[in-house]
Each structure stands twice: as structure tokens, then as C-alpha cells.
């Protein structure tokens, strides 16, 4: 009997990437492989909860709980105001510092990652990140890149710049943002190139922190929001998954004292997005007199809410795919995972972005008529309520999304991903 192929998945420490990779790992297991996870220490337990072996990247330093709380309070205080800014304004305040930190993370991860890869010697590596780790390329192992952000992550002259939120046909916006981006990230990019050189790799061109894999690149982007490219991606190396949703058990929905049996709206801006308690209080107040039910993911701050209306239910965690499959509208931040899950289950999105590729998806949701977008801040209450009602009662939109959902589910992106990854290990792809 042949040995099961060992696949090492290395997602970045964000829930989107982590849980996409769980879906792929579930499919790999069904196809007879042995998926394992390499992860940052902060994500310890996420993958073992799903039954997968974890290997942790030692960070070389750890904080006490009190120090961690203090760090997070400072982080929130520093960045909450930045989430009110435009994508271009965020370049210097949020995006560049984030790239700086990402470069630091890559630096710290390099040696532990080398050691793990040397001892594991997997048949293939799956990297779901936005930055390159030389240990992967230098290992000589076949590796796949998962593009779990918006499709803008893979540049093309016909596609708006990554993180810009520019409309597809607004070339002036593209040029303006691209120039500002190059300037803003020049310093972390230079540091990154020195890091690459120190590990025997060539410099990357300006603005690039991760190359496409010469073996396989998996793009989560659903077909319904796919971009038209000037230079089409080679289908041998670039596989579109048309969504990538993990398997979960059905969720029990809570009861509501008011509006029971009315349309259900799920609201989640991710854990970071949930840190703005005042925004959530404003949203909940706006929801309170609407004829719908709302499930609101308030992240770690559940205890900060004391007077929740009878048609709203708050919690720190929801089994998202299962909840989305049962709701009539999904209000989210434009995270690619959330957008993909909404489409996978035929649910319209109302995107209220605040950072990163959420801006790109907020623009795309309108261009593809798969939902609508509103600014995260400054919305008049009436406009928010009208938008929510309009999306819930748009029968034509629902029919179109339901047709698309059937196609996505039939395509089975996680299985397609697993099959493509396993093809790296049997010599059928080189």
C-alpha cells in the first residue's frame, strides 16, 4: 500500500486564509492525502480543532496575557481612525505599516519554517499568504500558491490595483493609486528585498512581495466576479476554484422575541472589524426598528453590549458557512472569504469595507450586481435601512444568485484544489 501524500498547508494568520485552507485540507483528506498545517503560534489550535496536525512557528518571544491585552488596546487605539480613511489615504497610515510588519513576520518565520520543512519533507507545500518565504522556494519542494484575497492580488493592466478599490474602467484612479502605492511601500519593499537577498533569492520588482508559483496557483475568486484580463492567466498554472468553502455541521439558530420567521440578516466584519464597538452600537440601533432578524458577530467585545434589541442576537463566534447558508442577506467587510461564502450560498452581500481587499470587493459587488456597498461610516440611517430592505426583497437578484450558487456548489472548488495540489506530487504537473 502506498504512503499517503503529505501536504503541508501554510496559511497566514488570518481567519480567511486559515479557514479556506481547512476546506482544502478536508478535500485533500477525502482524496487520500495527509494534510498538516504549519502556522503561527497565535493560531495554535485552530487546525487541530478540525482534526489536523499542527506545526507551530516559534516566534522567539511571547507576551503575558496582560501584555497582549495592552498591546491590543494600543493597536486598536492607533488604527481605528485609519479605518475611516479612503484606500489611498490608508496607504501611509495602515497599508505601509502592515507591509512593514509582514516583512518582520516573514523574517522571524524563516528559520523555524526551514526547520519544519527539513524535518517534515512534505510532498508539496501550499502557501496561502501575501508574502514570500525563501524557505519554501529553497526547499526545492513543489509548492502551490493560494490567492485567497480578491483577484486584484494578481496584477494585470486591465485590473484595478490591489487594495485600491478603484472601479474597473477608471484608469486615472488606477494610475493615481499605483503611483501612491509604489511610493508608500518603497521602504518595506526595500527591506523585503534585502531579506530575500540574505536567503539567496533575487530581488522582486517594485511593489511585489510574493511571486506566482511556477507550479500551481489557486484563485478562490468565484466566476461571477472574475476579471477580464489583458494578459489571460495560463490555465495550466492558474486554477480558479469558483469558491472554496469548508464543510461544517448545520447550525442551530437562536430564537428571537420579535420578528420570528422574518428574513434573517447576518452581520460580520471579522474579528478586527468588530473592535469598533461604537460602530456596532450604531448599526444595532439602526437594525432595531427593522422588520427583520439580525445575527451580529461582535467578536471579543460581547460584554460591551447591554441593551440588545429583540430582533438582534449578538455573539462572539458563529459557524459562518452554516449561518450564511440560512440567511437572506450578509452584511460584511468585503473579506474575500465572506464574499465567496455569500456567493456560494446564493446570498446577496452588503459590503461595508474598512481596509485591504475589502475595498476591491466593495467596488466589485456593485460592478457585478451581486449586492451593494455602503461606506462603513457616515451612512444615513434611512439609507442603510433602505439598502438592506432593497437587497432582501430583490427577487431577480435572489434568482440570479441562486443559479450561480448551484453552479458553484456543483463545481466543488475544494475538491478541484485538492486534485490540483495532488497533481504536484505524482509527476503529472511539473
Amino acid at each position: 500500500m502506498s504512503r499517503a501524500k503529505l501536504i503541508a498547508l501554510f496559511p497566514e494568520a488570518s481567519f480567511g486564509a486559515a479557514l479556506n485552507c481547512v476546506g482544502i485540507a478536508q478535500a485533500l483528506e477525502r482524496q487520500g492525502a495527509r494534510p498538516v498545517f504549519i502556522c503561527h503560534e497565535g493560531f495554535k489550535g485552530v487546525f487541530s480543532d478540525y482534526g489536523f496536525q499542527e506545526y507551530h512557528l516559534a516566534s522567539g518571544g511571547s507576551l503575558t496575557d496582560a501584555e497582549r491585552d495592552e498591546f491590543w488596546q494600543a493597536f486598536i487605539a492607533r488604527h481605528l481612525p485609519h479605518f475611516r480613511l479612503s484606500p489611498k489615504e490608508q496607504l501611509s497610515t495602515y497599508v505601509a505599516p502592515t507591509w512593514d510588519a509582514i516583512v518582520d513576520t516573514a523574517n522571524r518565520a524563516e528559520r523555524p519554517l526551514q526547520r519544519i520543512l527539513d524535518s517534515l519533507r512534505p510532498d508539496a507545500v501550499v502557501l496561502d499568504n501575501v508574502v514570500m518565504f525563501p524557505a519554501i522556494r529553497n526547499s526545492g519542494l513543489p509548492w502551490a500558491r493560494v490567492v485567497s484575497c480578491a483577484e486584484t492580488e494578481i496584477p494585470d493592466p486591465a485590473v484595478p490595483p490591489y487594495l485600491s478599490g478603484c472601479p474597473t474602467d477608471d484608469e486615472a484612479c488606477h494610475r493615481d493609486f499605483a503611483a501612491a502605492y509604489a511610493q508608500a511601500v518603497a521602504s518595506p519593499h526595500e527591506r523585503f528585498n534585502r531579506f530575500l537577498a540574505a536567503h539567496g533569492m533575487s530581488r522582486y520588482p517594485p511593489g511585489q512581495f510574493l511571486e506566482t508559483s511556477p507550479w500551481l496557483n489557486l484563485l478562490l475568486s468565484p466566476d461571477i466576479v472574475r476579471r477580464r484580463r489583458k494578459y489571460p492567466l495560463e490555465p495550466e498554472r492558474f486554477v480558479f476554484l469558483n469558491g472554496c468553502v469548508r464543510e461544517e455541521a448545520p447550525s442551530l439558530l437562536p430564537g428571537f422575541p420579535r420578528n420570528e420567521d422574518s428574513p434573517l440578516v447576518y452581520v460580520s466584519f471579522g474579528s478586527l472589524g468588530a473592535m469598533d464597538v461604537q460602530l456596532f452600537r450604531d448599526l444595532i440601533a439602526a437594525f432595531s426598528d427593522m422588520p427583520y432578524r439580525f445575527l451580529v458577530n461582535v467578536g471579543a467585545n460581547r460584554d460591551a453590549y447591554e441593551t440588545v434589541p429583540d430582533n438582534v442576537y449578538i455573539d462572539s463566534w458563529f459557524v459562518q458557512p452554516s449561518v450564511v447558508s440560512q440567511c437572506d442577506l450578509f452584511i460584511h467587510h468585503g473579506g474575500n472569504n465572506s464574499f465567496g461564502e455569500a456567493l456560494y450560498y446564493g446570498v446577496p452581500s452588503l459590503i461595508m469595507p474598512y481596509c485591504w481587499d475589502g475595498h476591491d470587493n466593495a467596488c466589485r459587488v456593485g460592478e457585478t450586481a451581486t449586492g451593494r456597498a455602503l461606506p462603513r461610516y457616515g451612512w444615513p440611517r434611512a439609507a442603510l435601512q433602505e439598502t438592506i430592505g432593497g437587497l432582501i426583497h430583490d427577487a431577480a437578484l435572489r434568482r440570479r444568485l441562486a443559479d450561480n450558487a448551484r453552479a458553484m456548489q456543483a463545481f466543488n472548488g475544494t475538491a478541484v484544489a485538492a486534485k490540483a495540489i495532488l497533481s504536484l506530487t505524482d509527476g503529472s504537473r511539473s
Partner: protein
Amino acid sequence: MTSPANRGQRTRAHHVELAQRILDLVSEARMKKGSRLAEQWIATQCRVSRTPVRAALQLLAQQGVTEYRPGEGHRLAVDPRTAPGVDSRLPEPPEEILFGAVIRDRAARRLSKTLTVSALMRRYRAPRTTVQKVLQSLAEHQLVERAPGQRWVFRPNLDSADAVAESYRYRLLLEPAALEHPGFSVDGPRLASLRATLESLLGMPADRLDVHLFFESDHELHDTVARGCANRFIGDTLIHHQRLRRLSGSPVQPNLHRLREATREHLGIINQIEGGRMEVAADLMRIHLRLAGEQRPKMAHWGAPAAFRGIGDGR
């Protein structure tokens, strides 16, 4: 994830459904008025544990379909072929409805920490006597306590991540101790029917997994351990805590993998209890509670960008 009241409603719906299944069962078995209804026989036939069977029989007794006599159990009070269907609209006692609603609404943060009788009367359109009875009952369960000025205050309940973590640590001390204490009383039929429920759960496909049944079986196992304990103090405190868990509801639904693993762990514990290997059962219970306690609540604190987390950890 589900709120306690919603779970209460679902539990009642399950009991109504089970009561109807019992009626169908006795009719198929050609039972007649006066026939004895053995809980274990029904539990085996319906592939559920005895706790919901008891509740369903109680429902049938309330509707005059069965008659209960202490020491004898339930007998059919009517000919099942002529019995009407189970009336699912049978009202619960108002105090019971309000009791569940208050706990549910506090867990969902719809009620603030401080209560007054008049505020509860207004919110629930309930008479003063009903509200007072419910507050008394909540106080007996140590869920509220009196405060100055005609007010009541909620005591800490199992409705936050910290409280749930504390609950696991508490159970980790006491549930293995309950199993290891000499004289543990094994309720064989109850464990056998629970085994049947757990095995049926493991046979369910992912998309049709009955999460409600999982929570019911979880309660059933831990309640069996509490009730089997020969040390009355450990047993009583665990029974009280299990009731608190049931009323408060679990704030977090485990993922599919964990649901199945927990079900297997429950089966492993039952195997050891049935085999009389109580120390091994206690060890398996420790492992089970440790794994269960490591679930999701902590995840609410994750999810910030990796980069910033990296800075925080590496500082």
C-alpha cells in the same frame, strides 16, 4: 449556537414529536387502554435516551393520554387507536415560560444586569405574582440575588467566554472525581440508550447532523455521571451545575470535527463505565473536558492581521 429559550422551544418541539411517535408506536404494537408503557422499551424503539422519553410521557399524561402512578410508571389511559394526535399547543405554565425567557434574554444581553419587578411586568406583560414567583425561582437557582431598593441583580452565569472557561475548570475537578469516588452507581439502561443515541449521531452525514440531539446527549451523559456519584455533595453540586449549563445554553457550537470527536469521547467514557474501569473513565473524562474547554471562545480574540500579531508576540 443557540439561546437557552430557543433550545427550550426546540426541546419542547422534540418532546411533542416524540410523544406523537410514542402514540404511533403503541398503536402499531396494538396496545390497549391500561397497557404499561416501559420507558426503556420506548427509548430503545425510538433510539433516544430515557430523559426525553420521560418528558414526552409527561406531556401525554398532561393531555390525558397516559396515566402516571408512582411506583408503576405510565399506563395508557385511552385506546391509542381512538386517541387524538398530540396537542402541540398545550401551554406551558406561565412561570416556566417566563423563567426561560428571562434567562434567555439576559444571555442575549436583552436584559441589563439589574432588574425590577415592574420592569419585568412591562416587558413580558406578566402579572406581578408570576414575576415574583419567577424571581424567587431564579434566586433559588442562584441566578439572581436581591439588591437594595426593590431591585434584583443577575449573578454571573454561563453566558460569557470567561464564565464558560471557569465552568470547564470546575467540571474538570469534579466530574472525574465523581467517577472515581467509590460506589458509583451505574444506570445501565440509561447508558445503553445513550449509547444508541451516540451511535446514531456518528452515523449521520455532515449536512444532516442533528446538532440538537448532540447537545441533548451531551447533557444526558454528564447528568448520568452526576447522578451516579456516590458522594452526595459532589453529585448535588454537579447536578446543579449541569442544570445551569442546560438553562444557559452553550454559547458556542463546536465544528463538525469536534462534534464527532466529542461523541466518540462520550462513547469511550460509557465503555469504561460499563466495564467498571472507573479510573480509566475518569481519565477519559479529563481528556474530554480539556478538549471541549479549548474550543472557540478564545478564537474571538484572534483574527487581527498576522503582521500585527507578530509584532505583539515578538516584542
